[in-house]
């Protein structure tokens, strides 16, 4: 309609003006960066090991909050980011792994992050140099964000790729998740799926129980005579207990068989038979979620000083208790805080702000406060949450959950919609 008001030549003039204005804007932008660089040399270089939820968020926010004045390098072996959150829905069948897979080009381009596709092999902390499989890089400050490593000390026969093809953990989203889904699809109706849960702390406290619900939901619709047996090493459901209990005993009555205090002792791979302290069960599909600890590179650097598993940090800066020049964020950080993606991003931002402060001679925020939420899907649509605000306690020097947090009153499709919105927003925040 409005087009008729302007002749083609007028539109052309308008376009040219816009182009000029835009070019001017762009010139100004580069001038800014140039000026900032000229008048103030970059504040230094931060190298980040791991481009997961924690590492990628830290990189983006360091660039944003230092106004581009800190050179930021991320080292990550995979060219793709695969989200663990929502990966249980792949087992339920309502999502595919490709719905949860993203590239890194948007976030690295938008924020001028240097992205190195490689794996860190070792770190020389005296020389402040990181060695990768194909080169070296020096840093002023280092952030270690490698997520978790799985520990098969108790079941050493599972500690190889071939065994994990038969009995996957699927606790790092990717091909193991797809494999587990295929096994469930191939299982005949009337089969038994056995899931073993390690003692807390492990990555994502409600994660195993969400997985139980997803598999049970698939069975209920497609293989109603099948069973889900949960062998939990913990004395009770470790997160959202009442709500999961309701799902196990009502929504999935007759399908889910939950057995607490039942720690895995050994596994016979060919027969998929698990032995616990109390019993022996043969599975048709077996998913052993092994105990976990800080990512390998954190272990190599000796940062895992808590129970030889997790890394102790200063919660104001995430500086390691072992080496204050090295910061650790995400699932590798010692427990007390739930190991969630939301938590990993919150830690990353406190660390990013502290990094900017430290590198410009300022005080980091002495009393950080942040929010955390974990949604879990009960079926393909309904979700439940646990949500808390965490505040720094200067006397105890830890993050403590504030009064007023809690869980959903009941599972609902409305919360399912908000849970998908959570995923879309956190992906957009981390990856663009």
């Amino acid at each position, binding site marked *: 309609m409005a087009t008729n008001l302007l002749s083609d030549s007028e539109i052309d003039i308008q376009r040219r003006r816009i182009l000029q204005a835009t070019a001017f804007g762009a010139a100004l932008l580069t001038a800014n960066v140039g000026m900032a660089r000229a008048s103030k040399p970059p504040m230094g270089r931060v190298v980040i090991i791991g481009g997961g939820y924690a590492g990628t968020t830290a990189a983006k926010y360091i660039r944003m909050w230092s106004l581009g004045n800190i050179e930021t390098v991320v080292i990550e072996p995979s060219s793709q980011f*695969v989200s663990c959150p929502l990966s249980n829905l792949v087992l339920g069948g309502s999502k595919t792994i490709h719905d949860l897979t993203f590239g890194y080009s948007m976030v690295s381009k938008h924020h001028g992050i240097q992205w190195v596709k490689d794996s860190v092999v070792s770190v020389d902390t005296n020389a402040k140099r990181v060695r990768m499989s194909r080169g070296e890089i020096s840093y002023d400050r280092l952030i270690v964000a490698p997520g978790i490593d799985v520990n098969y000390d108790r079941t050493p026969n599972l500690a190889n790729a071939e065994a994990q093809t038969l009995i996957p953990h699927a606790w790092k989203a990717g091909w193991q998740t797809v494999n587990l889904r295929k096994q469930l699809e191939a299982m005949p109706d009337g089969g038994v799926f056995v899931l073993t849960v390690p003692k807390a702390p492990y990555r994502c406290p409600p994660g195993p129980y969400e997985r139980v619900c997803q598999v049970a939901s698939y069975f209920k619709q497609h293989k109603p005579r099948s069973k889900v047996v949960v062998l939990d090493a913990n004395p009770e459901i470790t997160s959202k207990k009442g709500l999961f209990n309701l799902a196990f005993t009502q929504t999935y009555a007759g399908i889910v068989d939950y057995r607490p205090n039942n720690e895995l002792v050994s596994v016979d791979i060919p027969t998929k038979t698990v032995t616990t302290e109390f019993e022996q069960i043969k599975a048709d599909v077996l998913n052993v979620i092994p105990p976990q600890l800080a990512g390998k590179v954190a272990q190599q650097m000796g940062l895992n000083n808590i129970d030889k598993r997790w890394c102790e940090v200063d919660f104001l800066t995430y500086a390691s208790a072992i080496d204050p020049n090295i910061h650790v964020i995400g699932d590798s950080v010692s427990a007390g805080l739930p190991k969630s*993606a939301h938590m990993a991003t919150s830690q990353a931002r406190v660390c990013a702000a502290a990094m900017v402060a430290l590198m410009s001679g300022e005080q980091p925020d002495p009393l950080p*406060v942040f929010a955390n939420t974990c949604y879990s899907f009960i079926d393909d649509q309904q979700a439940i949450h646990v949500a808390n605000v965490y505040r720094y306690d200067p006397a105890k020097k830890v993050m403590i959950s504030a009064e007023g947090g809690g869980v959903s009153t009941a599972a609902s499709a409305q919360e399912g919609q908000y849970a998908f919105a959570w995923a879309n927003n956190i992906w957009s925040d981390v990856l663009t």
Partner: protein
Amino acid sequence: MLTMIKAFFLATSLLLSASLVPAEESSTINIQNQQSHTRILAASCAACHGTQGNSVGITPTLAGLDKGYFVTQMLAFKRGERSPTVMHHHAKGLTEDEIQSLAVYFAQQPRVTHIAPKTEQLKESHGH
């Protein structure tokens, strides 16, 4: 077309003013650090409300919300006067001071359309 052009002009001038901000602020990183507490707290709302309060999903956008409206809603969540799904569990953990500073922070954030990252086919070469 005219409206499109107007929108383009608006976007361009926004771009211009946006590009001016870093120039003014690059000398005042200090001031930014004083606001660090609120910024860190506000950024933890991003998982649900989007980067700097610009949501890509059905969760409401907080960027550019009127301060008074923001405070009223947060206090209503805190006191159980608005029936939410999850916000009471966040609002109850915050002090009234924090709510006031968050209101100021979000009111100052420009409304922008965030892009969602594109999904990809998982490559065979992806480990684990």
